[in-house]
Every structure is written in structure tokens, then in C-alpha cells.
């Protein structure tokens, strides 16, 4: 059960690490077929307008330009999207955000491509734009999709339990606040890219940096009127994804270029600036929250109204908001909740999936309110959280019963035992000149998987090779989270083989079986479970087939070990290599599948959400941040960040630490550095010199405390935890800043000017 911090450093070496460390691993960006064409996009550059003129004649006539395609050249629906298909591949009449694509150029060289793109003449008739989600819902707001029945309201959701408005009225104390979190850019290092060609057999063959190769086929097919079964997508290791490569980035445009390229390979790579303009973003959100409690600190009621900025296209906005609402009560016991959300279309950049998927936004609000409550009651913020921490069998804010191992209090205790907490008073007292120090602690949670509605399913294919080794057909892309290595480790353990006996085929829709997207903290759990089932079948098969060769009438007594099946009774053994030669190919394959269990009796709420509500499995944790504030500049230095997680059994401590460190770094970025400076639909911080992610000299040595826990339904007892670490730093830094400087942060990122103002150091 959760409680003890794991100290055994059981670690699974990363199967891909040495190839990456020696620069041999080939990412999608590294595939440049000889004699390939280059494709690029002309983008709107204006947030909302009618496209009144598009003259591509000069572009077409440019030396080296092979084709210039516009909306008229797009077959099919010209609509891409994951669930809702509302995003044009190439815009015809109107553009709805600055990154909208209006023309596609295909050329022999990158120079000719650039030249061709620059010669496209586009004229626009600007339309009034709408740039915040609350305004977008006003009756006279400009319509992003005119004629749409619900106007700019993309999705509405209500999750409630008990009677929160009434209960609030009876609470001893009520605190309220309005909080906001900004758009966030993924800044994966490998830019969106791919190569594609139409083979002589008429198959669209694509290699792309993608988190969802299987779904991509359907997105492309729907958009361009192609047959999804005649599309092959290969997904090599990604140079980062974080959600930003979930949903077509280059795919539909690249496919369009490829089908117009006479069978030649076409390559498309977005520039960094282009990715800022055209790529997906974390949804900016604002949250209005009220929290009521008894005088002794017991939480009683919570109301929350959230507005999410979807940009002009749906992507996964509804699902993101749903997950946000589901998490809006934090990992706390709150009898009455009313959690309401509106997702609105705007002319800002497109909101899409990003690690933490709506939970980042919601967590910030509820954790800030817990701090407000602690201040009002004169309570220590850690103690207040511990008092209200969810326990097994209790119902969470969305009405779902917490799983048997839930121990949020233990997660808090783990960070409270850390010297960064126990030694905080002495640390604060010894602050150097012009420095104020503070410490904050928050609780975190993140559900795993797709939730109800869409089956969170995976099929795994495992092959005994002719040489007696094994081949795992991985279907969920590895974007750095290390799932590929985890699968090798699991299979090695399940089949009693060394890791070196396993080869991994990275996702290829032609030979692997669908297993859903690399997202939602699900891949190791869902595909892992499917793989373990296939391993069980393989073990049985190997023993049964070996029994024939060993003349053994009791295959159950045979022992499978490295490279061999042995009969302990006779002492005879059959090498796996012999079985590999003996069995025909169909018999060397084991295929099995797994569907993540869902909440069995879902609460009668959140009815608007067909997909993604509610979730059954949660990981929990806590986060401590220690900050130093400079009184002269307002700059905040993150001195310590300690995160505890309870995420089932730990297959590889290194793997858990990697995820927590990286997620916390992105959370710290959101808290202190990453400011898109969005205005009028344009990110003024539109490149890496202005949109600042933390460097190595901006972050502390993150600490990760993995608690002893177990997920009985998980492969080897583990639970997904790729996202949870991102939630801590925002609210923990905010609490620490209050501790250090009396600053009450209501939005992220916290800027030095905000801090200076709070210190009274800015002229009013």
C-alpha cells in the first residue's frame, strides 16, 4: 500500500539510449530520401478574414516549383480533426487564425520552395476577431464558424454532486477567486515533419513524427477522400511530443502533396516560427471558483466555472475540458460540487493536447483556493490538504470512488518528510541580502487513459523469430517516455529472457496492430497489458511446442529460460532457435489485446461528455517548491522542487524519475518562464528567443519520491504517470511566493514585475 518511499533502485536500462547517445538513432526528421521534393505552406498571417484573392501564378512559374495547390485541389472533405472534423486542410473562403493554411507549394529544393511561397499573392478582407473565450460567448461576438447552431460554444459540461450552491450558503467560511493559466507551447525539439509518397501500388506511404499513426490514417483519409486502408504510417522515435503531435500536424498537407507528386517522395518540415503559429497549444483557461468549508477545515462545497480557449478548431477541446472538470476538486474529499465549463471557439492559435490535458488549468485554481482557505482559517496549507486528502472508497469531486490504494496523505507526508520542508524555517531565516525565501506544498493527481466512451484498447503482436529471439511489434510511439524500453523489460521478465533477446519494431501500421495514441499516460499500461497477455500465450505455446520435441506429456512442468525450454524431469532441453526453425510463421506469432477497465457505475453527471468522462484509475502525488525572490529585480529562483508520486508498482525507478523531472520542468516553465504574450490572435513570443523554456541554469536538481504502491490491474502492477508531475510547480510556486513575499498569484506565469509589485517595489 502507498506510504513508504521506494529506495530500491530497480532500473530498466533504456533500450534506445545508446543509439541516441551515439547519434545513430534516426528520427522522422532524419529521413530525406534522395531526390525528394519539398513541401511548404503559405499561412494566413491574419487571425480572422475572408480570403478574397489568391494568385499563385507567379509561384507556379517559379523555377523549381513542381506544384502549387489551393483549396480547389483538395479532394475529399477538406476537413481534418481528431473527433470533430472542423479544420480545413487548405482554407478556401475564410481564415480563422494566423496559422491557417491557404496554399501548399511543392518544389525541387528548399530554396525554390521558399521562393515559390514568397510569390503567392493573397488578399484578405479582415473580419472582426474574437480573442477570449468569455467574450466569444456573448450574443454579438464574431462567429468563428458562421451558421453553426451553437455559435462559438464548442462544448459545455456540468459535473456535479450533491447541491453545492445550497451547501455553500451554509458553510462557516467561503473563499473565492478568479485564476487563469496561459496558452503553453510544447517546444518539442524535433519540429513537426514527415515524408510521404504514393507507391506504384497506390499506397500512401508516410514516415512522420506522430503520436497517433493509426488514427492519422483516418484523419488523412477523411480529409482527402482516400482509403484509410491504403495508407501506411510509420512512427519512428519522436524527438518529443508532449501532446503536440497528437492529431495531424503535417500529415494531411503532406499527403496532399504526395498524391500530387507523381510518385516521388515529398518531405515537409515546419520551421520553429511556423510551429509557434500553426501548431497546437495548451488551452488558455480562466477559472472562477468558490470553496466552502467548516471552521475546523473540513471541505464542504466547491463551485467552479471554467472557460477554455479552443482557438478556431475543436481538436480535443471538449475532452480536455472534461478532464479538467473531473479534476477540478483536486484529490480532496468534498461532498458538494458544481463544476461547470464552457469551451469556446476564438481566433487565437488552436488549442490541442498537451501533457496534463485540462488538469493543469483546473489544479492551479483549486490549489490556490486551498491556500486561500488555509489563510482564512489560520491553518498551515499542508495540514489543511492532509486533513481533506481523499482515501480509498471515498468519492472524488466528480462522483467517482477512489481506488483501493489511494493514499494522498501518504504522498503529502513523503514531501513533508523531506529536508526542504523540515528545514524550511532555518533556510528562510538565513536568506542572503535582498532575498526572500518561501516554501509551498500542494497535492496533485492525474487520471489515466481515455475514460469512458472511447475504448482505451491495444493489440500487441509478439513474434518468435527464426533465430529463437523475439520481436515486439510496438504500436504506441515512443516520444521519449521510454515505453519501448518498458515493453522490452516487461516481455523479458514475462518470458524469462534477457533484454538483448528482444527486438522492437517501432509503430508501422502495416505490420503492427492498432493500440491507440501515445497519450493520456496510457501507453505502458494498456499496451503493456496486451503485451503481457501475448507473452503468456507465447510462453504456453513455446512450452507446448517444445513438449512435442521433448516427448513430454505435461507441458506445464517445462521451464522457459534464456534461449531454451527445459524439462527438469529428463534434463533435456529444446533451444528456442530450434523452435524458431521448426514453427511456420503463423505459429510463431502471438496476438492479444487489452481494454482498460472503465468506471462501472458512473455517476449521473457530466452527461454532455460522450467521450472521456469519467476515469477510473488515478495516480496521486504531492509537490514541494522552495523559491528565492530577489527584492531588487523581482526575479524568482526555483531553489528546490520535490515531487512524490504513487503510481502503482515501479517497473523502473529511473523511468519514473525521468517522467517526473521532465514534467516538473515543464510545470516550472509554465509557472515562471513561458509567456506567449498573446494579443489579437498573435503570440508576440513567437520563437525561442522570446518564448523562454528553462535552461540548465534555471532549474534545481528535481527530486522524485516514488511511493510503494500497487495497481492490481496494471502490467506488473504499474499505473500511468507521464503527466502528473507537471501539476505541482504552478500552485506550489504560487504558495511559496505568498510565503516568501506575501504575493497572491492569480495567474501564470508569475512575472518579475508581478513580484516587484507585490513587494511594494513598483511605483503605483
Amino acid at each position, binding site marked *: 500500500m502507498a506510504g513508504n518511499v521506494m529506495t530500491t533502485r530497480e*532500473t530498466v536500462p533504456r533500450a534506445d539510449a545508446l543509439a*541516441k*547517445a551515439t547519434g545513430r538513432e534516426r528520427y522522422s526528421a532524419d529521413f530525406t530520401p534522395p531526390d525528394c521534393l519539398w513541401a511548404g505552406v503559405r499561412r494566413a498571417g491574419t487571425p480572422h478574414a475572408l480570403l478574397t484573392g489568391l494568385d499563385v501564378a507567379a509561384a507556379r512559374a517559379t523555377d523549381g516549383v513542381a506544384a502549387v495547390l489551393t483549396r480547389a485541389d483538395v479532394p475529399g472533405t477538406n476537413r481534418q480533426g481528431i473527433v470533430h472534423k472542423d479544420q480545413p486542410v487548405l482554407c478556401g473562403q475564410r481564415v480563422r487564425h494566423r496559422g491557417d493554411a491557404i496554399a501548399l507549394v511543392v518544389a525541387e529544393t528548399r530554396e525554390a520552395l521558399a521562393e515559390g511561397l514568397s510569390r503567392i499573392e493573397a488578399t484578405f478582407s479582415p473580419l472582426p476577431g474574437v480573442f477570449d473565450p468569455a467574450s466569444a460567448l456573448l450574443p454579438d461576438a464574431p462567429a468563428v464558424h458562421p451558421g453553426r447552431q451553437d455559435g462559438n460554444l464548442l462544448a459545455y459540461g456540468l459535473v456535479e454532486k450533491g447541491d453545492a450552491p445550497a451547501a455553500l450558503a451554509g458553510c462557516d467560511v467561503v473563499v473565492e477567486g478568479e485564476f487563469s493559466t496561459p496558452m503553453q507551447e510544447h517546444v518539442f525539439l*524535433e519540429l513537426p515533419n514527415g515524408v510521404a509518397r504514393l507507391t506504384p501500388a497506390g499506397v500512401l506511404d508516410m514516415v512522420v513524427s506522430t503520436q497517433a499513426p493509426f488514427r492519422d490514417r483516418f484523419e488523412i483519409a477523411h480529409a482527402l477522400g482516400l482509403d484509410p486502408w491504403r495508407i501506411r504510417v510509420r512512427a519512428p522515435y519522436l524527438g518529443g511530443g508532449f501532446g503536440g503531435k497528437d492529431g495531424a500536424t503535417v500529415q494531411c498537407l503532406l499527403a496532399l502533396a504526395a498524391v500530387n507528386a507523381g510518385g516521388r517522395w515529398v518531405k515537409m518540415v515546419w520551421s520553429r516560427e511556423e510551429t509557434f503559429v500553426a501548431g497546437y497549444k495548451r488551452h488558455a483557461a480562466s477559472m472562477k471558483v468558490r470553496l466552502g468549508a467548516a471552521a475546523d477545515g473540513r471541505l464542504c462545497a466547491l463551485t467552479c466555472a471554467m472557460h477554455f480557449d479552443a482557438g478556431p478548431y475543436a481538436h480535443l477541446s471538449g475532452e480536455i475540458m472534461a478532464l479538467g472538470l473531473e479534476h477540478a476538486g483536486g484529490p480532496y474529499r468534498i461532498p458538494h460540487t458544481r463544476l461547470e465549463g464552457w469551451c469556446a471557439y476564438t481566433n487565437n492559435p488552436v488549442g490541442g493536447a498537451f501533457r496534463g490535458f485540462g488538469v493543469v488549468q483546473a489544479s492551479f485554481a483549486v490549489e490556490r483556493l486551498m491556500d486561500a482557505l488555509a489563510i482564512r482559517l489560520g491553518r498551515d496549507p499542508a495540514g489543511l490538504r492532509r486533513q481533506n486528502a481523499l482515501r480509498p472508497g471515498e468519492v472524488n469531486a466528480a462522483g467517482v470512488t477512489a481506488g483501493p490504494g489511494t493514499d494522498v496523505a501518504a504522498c503529502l507526508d513523503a514531501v513533508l518528510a523531506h529536508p526542504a520542508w523540515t528545514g524550511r524555517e532555518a533556510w528562510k531565516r538565513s536568506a542572503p541580502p535582498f532575498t526572500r525565501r518561501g516554501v509551498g506544498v500542494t497535492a496533485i493527481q492525474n487520471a489515466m487513459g481515455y475514460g469512458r466512451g472511447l475504448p482505451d484498447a491495444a493489440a500487441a503482436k509478439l513474434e518468435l523469430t527464426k533465430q529463437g529471439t523475439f520481436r515486439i511489434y510496438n504500436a504506441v510511439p515512443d516520444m521519449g517516455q521510454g515505453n519501448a524500453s518498458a515493453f522490452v523489460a516487461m516481455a523479458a521478465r514475462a518470458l524469462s529472457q534477457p533484454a538483448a533477446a528482444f527486438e522492437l519494431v517501432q509503430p508501422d501500421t502495416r505490420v503492427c496492430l492498432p493500440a491507440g495514441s501515445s497519450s493520456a499516460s496510457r501507453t505502458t499500461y494498456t499496451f503493456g497489458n496486451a503485451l503481457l497477455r501475448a507473452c503468456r500465450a507465447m510462453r504456453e505455446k513455446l512450452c507446448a511446442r517444445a513438449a512435442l520435441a521433448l516427448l513430454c506429456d505435461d507441458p506445464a512442468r517445462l521451464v522457459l529460460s534464456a534461449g531454451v525450454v527445459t524439462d527438469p524431469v529428463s534434463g533435456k532441453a529444446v533451444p528456442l532457435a530450434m523452435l524458431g526453425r521448426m514453427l511456420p510463421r503463423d505459429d510463431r506469432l502471438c496476438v492479444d489485446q487489452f481494454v482498460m477497465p472503465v468506471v462501472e457505475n458512473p455517476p449521473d453527471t457530466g452527461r454532455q461528455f460522450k467521450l472521456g468522462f469519467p476515469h477510473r484509475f488515478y495516480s496521486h502525488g504531492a509537490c514541494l517548491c522552495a523559491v528565492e525572490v530577489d527584492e531588487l529585480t523581482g526575479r524568482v529562483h526555483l531553489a528546490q522542487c520535490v515531487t512524490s508520486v504513487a503510481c502503482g508498482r515501479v517497473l523502473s525507478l529511473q523511468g519514473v524519475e525521468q517522467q517526473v523531472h521532465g514534467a*516538473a520542468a515543464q510545470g516550472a516553465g509554465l509557472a515562471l518562464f513561458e509567456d506567449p504574450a498573446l494579443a489579437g490572435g498573435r503570440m508576440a513570443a513567437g520563437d525561442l528567443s522570446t518564448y523562454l523554456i528553462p*535552461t*540548465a541554469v534555471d532549474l534545481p536538481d528535481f527530486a522524485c519520491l516514488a511511493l510503494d504502491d500497487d495497481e492490481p490491474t496494471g502490467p506488473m502492477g504499474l499505473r500511468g504517470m507521464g503527466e502528473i508531475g507537471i501539476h505541482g510547480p504552478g500552485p506550489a510556486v504560487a504558495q511559496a511566493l505568498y510565503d516568501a513575499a506575501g504575493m497572491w498569484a492569480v495567474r501564470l506565469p508569475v512575472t518579475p514585475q508581478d513580484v516587484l509589485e507585490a513587494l511594494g517595489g513598483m511605483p503605483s
Partner: protein
Amino acid sequence: MSRPVELHFTLNGAPVCIETRPGRRVLDLLREDFGLAAAKEGCGAGECGACTVLVDGEPKLSCLMLAAQLEGRTVATAEGLGTADAPHPVQAAFAAHGAVQCGYCTPGMTLVAAELLSRNPDPDRETVRQAVSGNLCRCTGYVKIVDAVLAAAKAGQGEKP
């Protein structure tokens, strides 16, 4: 488009001669003409370090170098630092200590780290962080990268890259 010129330089220990447009980026020259794809393009503006190569032993941004600048120089890429069978101690340490997640920043990081250790065999954590401060990583939070460099320092005492 300007005339191609002949360039002579040393690449990963071997002398090379290539004819190319002098104004091409070194990043493109290495990736496309020499098939050395370890140096990556993350931004094209010198802000991320994914394109790092060593020129005369100094880490530089190959996205901001012109091919002509390589004339007579010694260039080393991550591929030249070591192989899977014979990795450089820094590469081995990165792999062993969890410093590699998506791996896109890794070639640049390892070159910078190797150069650091070649002149400072026993750096502290802060010195390592300063050395890699021009190489962005979005996956690791940098902790295990620092761990790996210190482990390599302990193990290898800085073999020359």
C-alpha cells in the same frame, strides 16, 4: 546561387574534400552530404543547441556556420565521439544514467560535456549546468544529464573528444 567551391577539412578524424556552395549551413552539409544526422535542427537560430558540433575542439552552433568556414578546420560530430560498440565515456554515462529520453538534445549535450571534461576533469554540478546552458532539453529537466556528466568524469577523467 553562387558557384560551388572545394572545401578541405577533417571530419571525425578523417580528411575530407567536398564541393559545395560556400554559403550552405554547416548543419545541412553534415546531415545531407555526409549523412551525419546526429546534429539536429531545433530552431535554426542558435537558440537551442541541437545543432552543436565541435570545430577545432570548440562547441559551436552548426546552424549558424557557413560551409566555407570549415576550410582547414577539424570538425567532430557526435557520431565521431563514439559508437554503440565503443561509446565515449560521456555517451555511455548518458545511456546508463537516464540522461536520454527523446534523445534529440543528446548529441549536442554529449559533445559539450566531452569538451568540458577534456579541460576540466572534475567539475561540480553548477559548472556542468553552466556548460550545457546553451543546449535546451524539454524532456529531462537536466538533472540526470548533470548526473551523467559527473559520472563520466569519475569514470573516464575526460578522454579527448
